[in-house]
């Protein structure tokens, strides 16, 4: 199904705004010391997660990363359970046990964020193997960053995916940095050529253009469903915040000008909003109404999560094994 109608466009817009808003609130929670630990903001990269996930159904799976809120929202998660999880509350998607770096939402096919860079590449490929073995036509998308291309695991699983024609799409979010290091300092040669060397069809795409991302993904997902996979996508994008919320002074590794340029000239939400208005798909007022509704949704969810209960201490040794209620009893 290609997303050409108004409803689809507006949902894509809404989803991007939801991600941005979620992150702004999460950042606020961190800055006001209400969030335990730290977290990695997806702001700036919204068109990637949304463009891709809008091409998927709930039966399709994704695996996500340490920078995973965007994927989670895009795949259909609710703010309430997400904020609860970020605050370690019992009503979180993972009963507070996972937190930001392990948020998962199986009900929508999100197999989870992962705090090991590249750690979910095997999982995603294995999900695709299961689909093939069981004759199911779902597709799995594996999100990871440019930095993760340095993990040997990727090459191992690409080889198997290619040998066995697995319905998996490797989606590399190239935001130019891994932590405090520029991609060109840690990646030799060409990233797309690496996938191509395994016989995997590869595409580089503007990750700030949600329609371009979505159109391409739609095509590839349809082909993957027919057994023409795997595919590789390199999505050129940018993260607006630091590597994590605490990475404030970052001029030693990237300039304010560079950040400004991306924010002012290539913002995926601003761009798409302009397009929607220009094309007469939505009026400025309609857009503002969406923004306001999302804001409210987020504010409510944050308030709910702040007030929600922590898990009972008796939960500490639950879920170690699926068949043993309390592992230490």
């Amino acid at each position, binding site marked *: 199904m290609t997303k050409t109608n108004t409803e689809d466009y507006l949902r894509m817009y809404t989803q991007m705004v939801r991600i941005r808003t979620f992150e702004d609130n999460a950042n606020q929670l961190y800055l006001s010391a209400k969030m335990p630990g730290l977290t990695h903001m997806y702001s700036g990269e919204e068109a990637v997660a949304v463009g891709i996930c809008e091409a998927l159904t709930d039966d399709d799976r994704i695996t996500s990363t340490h920078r995973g809120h965007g994927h989670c929202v895009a795949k259909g998660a609710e703010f309430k359970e997400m904020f609860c999880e970020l605050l370690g509350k019992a009503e979180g998607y993972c*009963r507070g046990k996972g937190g930001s770096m392990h948020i998962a939402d199986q009900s929508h096919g999100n*197999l989870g964020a992962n705090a090991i860079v590249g750690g979910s590449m095997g*999982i995603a490929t*294995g999900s695709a193997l299961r689909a093939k*073995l069981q004759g199911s036509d779902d597709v799995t998308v594996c999100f990871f960053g440019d930095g993760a291309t340095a993990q040997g695991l990727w090459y*191992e699983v690409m080889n198997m995916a290619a040998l066995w024609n697995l319905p998996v799409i490797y989606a590399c979010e190239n935001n130019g940095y891994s932590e405090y290091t520029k991609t060109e300092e840690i990646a030799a040669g060409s990233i797309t050529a690496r996938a191509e060397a395994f016989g995997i069809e590869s595409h580089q795409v503007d990750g700030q253009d949600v329609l371009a991302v979505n159109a391409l993904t739609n095509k590839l997902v349809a082909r993957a469903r027919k057994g023409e996979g795997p595919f590789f996508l390199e999505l050129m994008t940018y993260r607006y915040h630091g590597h994590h919320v605490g990475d404030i002074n970052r001029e030693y590794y990237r300039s304010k000008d560079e950040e400004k340029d991306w924010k002012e000239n290539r913002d995926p939400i601003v761009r798409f909003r302009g397009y929607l208005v220009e094309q007469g798909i939505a009026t400025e007022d309609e857009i503002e109404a969406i923004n306001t509704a999302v804001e409210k949704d987020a504010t409510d969810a944050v308030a709910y999560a702040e007030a929600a209960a922590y898990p009972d201490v008796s939960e500490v040794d639950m879920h170690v094994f*699926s068949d043993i209620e309390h592992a230490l009893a």
Partner: protein
Amino acid sequence: MREITLSQAVNEAIAEEMRRDPTVFLMGEDVAEAGTPFKVLSGLVEEFGTDRVLDTPISEPGFVGLAVGAAMTGARPIVDLMFGDFIYLVMDQLCNQAAKQHYMSGGKLTVPMVLRTNIGATRRSAAQHSQSLQALVAHIPGVKVAMPSSAYEAKGLMKTAIRDNNPVVIFEDKLMYQDKAPVPEEEYLIPFGEAHIKREGSDITFIATSSMVQVAEKAAALLDAEGISAEVIDPRTIVPLDEATLLASVKKTSRAIVIDEGHQSYGVTAEIASRLNEKAFYHLDAPVLRMGAMDVPVPFSPALEDITVPTPEGVAANARKLCAGEMIHAA
């Protein structure tokens, strides 16, 4: 009862479970036509086809990762890791990923996968093909660890492992693949966390894993002649560990030796001995002794390799001292 080899027992268990449950599949290096270098899986690809018996490239982290993902989404993979020494390569996928998914997701995701691999020295395979690394896995919450001591256990534990909804690692002793034992024709499963008293005795308890059960039994036979009665217990799974049965025995005999083929220091014997010391302290007449493999990489030379692992004579000698009230380590 018919006798079959440990290798046949594993093969039967897998075949039966694959017939029973279409979501079970096998993967690993040379598992299909070759049936593994140990030939344990021979015949399975002929029955189940290459869709359910997958030859993989030499990519241990990769294919274990695939198994985790397949297990998380509705399949039940059995992964063959050709040598236990390669477990180092898959520790991230096993311990950061498989072991923690259920917990991290608050109970929502499960990873029903089996990793079968092996242990055992004295095969002249040198330092990188002879290790017994069960302690590493047992230390990580979220993975169950089974150590069959004969064909009987190998079959029953494998079937249980395949049906378990958690990641399970089974360590088979590669020197035992041709060892025969009585195995019923009828189906049976061996529950995890239930130790088996292989031999009753009253003077001392030997707690031994995998092939060390044979070592312990031989030691017990040696001691019998001298009027020392040794009880031999096989925990069968070290995670979960059947503490109750071990404690009951030690409370009865008041002496114990724990024997495992992993390196002694920071190994399996330390955990079991510690639990006995903690929970049966006031019943002990002598310190609980541990006998693991020497804390050295496994040497190739036969002249050296054979002295690195516990032997029946060594176990019997220590038992004699304990029963005679000699303090082995002058305290």
